[in-house]
């Protein structure tokens, strides 16, 4: 897969269709893949990487990149294409400056899960027949894919690319039985005391690093409420550990109706807070109250909070 992508990127760079390539390169560790822009064929040959650790959604980077000189090539996984479409609907990215190559995806590995299994010195990974083969400095080992897959991939909502200029690999289908609301339903079944205890436990770990906001493709405001010192929710020392709950409620509400459920917030959280459960609650409610809606699926469809009907349910 990496070879095919690299070859195609080199061709497009050589014939002048694009002048830059947005992909992934190895970060600090071989399993820590970082989004990167490649400008020349040499850079691409040296640094370009694609494997099952490349979970990062590249669409948000296009807000800045699509405003630069020349066309940029971007590789998007199916879930990333939803974010791309949503950004397009919000006029945040310039479509004409982007060449989208859709790439197939069967679920990305969660390195934390691999580490929890006792794997050390991880250097690489590839998937074959429902199993990840993890290469480590101590030799390679195979693990069942569902045991090491990121939570968001286990509950994958769609393997279909909603936007692309060309595809590498096969286009999939929308997954209808993804059960992504299971955990939300479990929480809903609890008593308010239990729910509060659950969220207090989770959100008290928040260190307010803002990684969830910074990575979120829906959080693309140039001026963010959390940077406004007069908002009351700007970064300041918390008196008790649970006070960052406001940040998460407000953020979830700000992206309600625009969140495509890409799961980046939970992926980047250094404290492993299941932030996607907040967003999924809104998605579930909107589906239940105002009809099925998937942000990013159809850029021409009106978002639930941007419209109303006379017979809406009472609040």
């Amino acid at each position, binding site marked *: 897969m990496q070879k095919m992508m690299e070859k195609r990127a080199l061709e497009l760079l050589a014939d002048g269709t694009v002048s830059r390539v947005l992909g992934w390169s190895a970060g600090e560790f071989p399993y820590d893949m970082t989004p990167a822009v490649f400008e020349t064929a040499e850079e691409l040959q040296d640094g370009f990487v694609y494997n099952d650790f490349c979970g990062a959604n590249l669409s948000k980077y296009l807000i800045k990149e699509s405003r630069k000189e020349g066309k940029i090539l971007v590789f998007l996984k199916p879930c990333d294409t939803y974010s791309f479409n949503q950004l397009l609907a919000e006029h945040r990215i310039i479509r004409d400056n982007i060449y989208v190559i859709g790439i197939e995806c069967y679920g990305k590995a969660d390195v934390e899960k691999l580490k929890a299994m006792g794997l050390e010195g991880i250097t690489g990974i590839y998937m074959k027949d429902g199993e990840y083969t993890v290469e480590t400095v101590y030799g390679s080992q195979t693990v069942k894919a569902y045991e090491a897959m990121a939570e968001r991939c286990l509950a994958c909502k769609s393997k279909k690319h909603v936007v692309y200029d060309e595809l590498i690999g096969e286009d999939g289908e929308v997954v209808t039985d993804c059960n992504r609301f299971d955990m939300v339903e479990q929480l809903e079944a609890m008593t*308010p005391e239990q729910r*509060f205890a659950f969220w207090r436990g989770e959100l008290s770990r928040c260190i307010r690093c803002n990684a969830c906001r910074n990575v979120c493709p829906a959080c693309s405001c140039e001026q963010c*409420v959390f940077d406004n010192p007069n908002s009351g929710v700007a970064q300041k020392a*918390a008196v008790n550990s649970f006070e960052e709950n*406001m940040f998460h409620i407000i953020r979830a509400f700000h992206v*309600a109706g625009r969140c495509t459920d890409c799961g980046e917030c939970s992926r980047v959280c250094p404290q492993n807070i299941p932030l996607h459960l907040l967003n999924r609650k809104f998605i579930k409610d909107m589906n239940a109250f105002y009809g099925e809606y998937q942000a990013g699926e159809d850029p021409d469809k009106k978002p639930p909070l941007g419209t109303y009907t006379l017979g809406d349910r*009472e609040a």
Partner: protein
Amino acid sequence: MQVTEYKPKIVAFCCNWCSYAGADGAGSARLSYPEEVKIIRVPCSCRVNPMFILRAFQRGADGVIIAGCHPGDCHYTSGNYFTRRRMALLFSMLDYLGIERERTRVEWISAAEGAKFSKTMTEFCATVAALGENKRLEDLRCKK
């Protein structure tokens, strides 16, 4: 030692064109409503940013009620329809986080419904008082 009776703190956002006048109507008709209710006048129920409600809870409110014009009667044509959608989602989310659903409410009260205003507020106060203090979202940083 004197034991003071517990009184909940209630914040009521009232639309200038209906519920606020409704409260006035209640006064003219000599109908009482609990003193715990602190009214904040807004130009439209739609003016209520969800953050206002969170802020009220942050600062120790026990219950928040939004009173606006009946659907179809909005002074600005459609404001209350948006309020309805927003608050349905926000209140459901607060419930999901463990803030009882009974602590939040949206009511439609017109300028002529002084009696309804008085009745709604009395009832809401009693409900919130029964739930007791709400410390769950309190943020000590916001205490002045």
